[in-house]
């Protein structure tokens, strides 16, 4: 075998690729489902916490800041392992899928709360006062006047952070979720050939290159002229 043939046999073996492609595609489905669930729950919780923080109740705000700090400081993999291997000891066991979902949701919640809050505090005080002067109560002012401006400010950093955390779904492979990486690794173990892993890497590229490029576009589209 020439060098190229050996390379192709190992990394781009068509027989093995055909055999394991269905498993990788199923893994792609799991990754997308997990990502969508994480983005939905993480952003909703983050926005909810940021809104709660706008009420300016001292002890509550300290609690929010502490929780946010914890989930910004801990590595996502540590949180996943703690939930998956630790919680059963407390009588609460969770499948790898839901453990990964919960861990990354908490992480995205923390980061997005921070970003939404920065957006809310960036809206000038005069906007609040004007809302009140128009006869709106606190909540309508927040919802109709402050939040639309805050969210616009928050979009570029939020998009990048969301992409980064979504890529963390690959960590699920550590706790036996058969998302792309998990499926690729078991494919590699069964076949004794790394082609499934090449396919897995390709699946991530296909999934995330458009997202990364869209993120770049959104960043310039929503960028504020300094």
């Amino acid at each position, binding site marked *: 075998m020439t060098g190229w043939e050996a390379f192709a046999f190992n990394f781009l073996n068509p027989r093995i690729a055909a055999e394991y492609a269905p498993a990788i595609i199923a893994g792609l489905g799991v990754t997308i489902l997990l990502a969508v669930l994480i983005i939905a729950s993480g952003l909703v919780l983050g926005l909810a916490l940021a809104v709660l923080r706008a009420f300016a109740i001292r002890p509550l705000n300290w609690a929010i800041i502490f929780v946010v*700090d914890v989930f910004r400081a801990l590595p996502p993999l540590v949180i996943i392992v703690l939930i998956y*291997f630790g919680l059963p000891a407390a009588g609460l066991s969770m499948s790898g899928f839901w453990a990964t979902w919960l861990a990354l949701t908490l992480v995205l919640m923390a980061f997005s709360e921070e970003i939404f809050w920065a957006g809310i505090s960036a809206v000038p005080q005069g906007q609040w006062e004007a809302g009140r002067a128009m006869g709106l109560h606190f909540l309508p002012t927040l919802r109709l006047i402050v939040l639309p401006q805050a969210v616009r400010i928050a979009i570029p950093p939020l998009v990048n952070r969301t992409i*980064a955390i979504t890529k*963390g779904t690959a960590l699920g492979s550590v706790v036996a979720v058969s998302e792309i990486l998990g499926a690729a690794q078991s494919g590699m173990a069964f076949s004794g050939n790394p082609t499934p892993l090449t396919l897995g890497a390709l699946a991530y590229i296909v999934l995330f*290159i458009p997202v990364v490029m869209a993120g770049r576009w959104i960043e310039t589209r929503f960028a504020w002229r300094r």
Partner: protein
Amino acid sequence: MSDFVQAFLNAEIALASSHLLWIGLVQTMLLALMTVPLGMVAGLLMAVLSTRKTRWVRWPLVAFIDFFRAIPPLVLLIFLYAALPFGGIDLGAWGSVALAFLLNTGAYYAEILRAGIESVPKGQPEAARALGLRPWQVWIFVVLPQAVRNVLPDLISNTLEVVKLTSIASVVAVPELLYQARQAQSITYNATPIMVAAVIYFLLLWPCVRLLSRLENRQIAGRR
């Protein structure tokens, strides 16, 4: 409640596993000391190169950076560690971690530094050249200090992410903090070591998170 304490905050087990965790902490710090400078140097090189006007340099570089930003770092690490040996290239655990971080965090640092360099007004390097500084002096004394200052929160934030990311080295059996904690957990059948590891990570990184939160608030508020 006492069950919870038994399973998560067991002082006896924490003490028994302290030696393993200490080794892990040292390894984690070594990993951070290796991966942060590696990523920064690679990122800086790519950022400086990407300011070249020729599209033959810039486009492949953007493609390279986007490629490694699209692949999850764990996938890259496992590919280097488990798949490359089939091609006759065996980097070992530390080598795989080093290369994976070089490519992944290098790409992120490159993006950040590029934005920083672009934020320095053109007049600055021109003025420096007019004053007789050599091109390398222009970079080191004029452009880079301003570029770094302009993107400092992003740089710190990325560095924090890199240090957190060293935990994935546990997957390729580098005995860092998380790996050691899981070893201790499987020996003792108790979740306390993982809890202790989490607390160590938190204590280590919390000051950094606090600092960042202040810097970021100021940055986002300043954007308006």
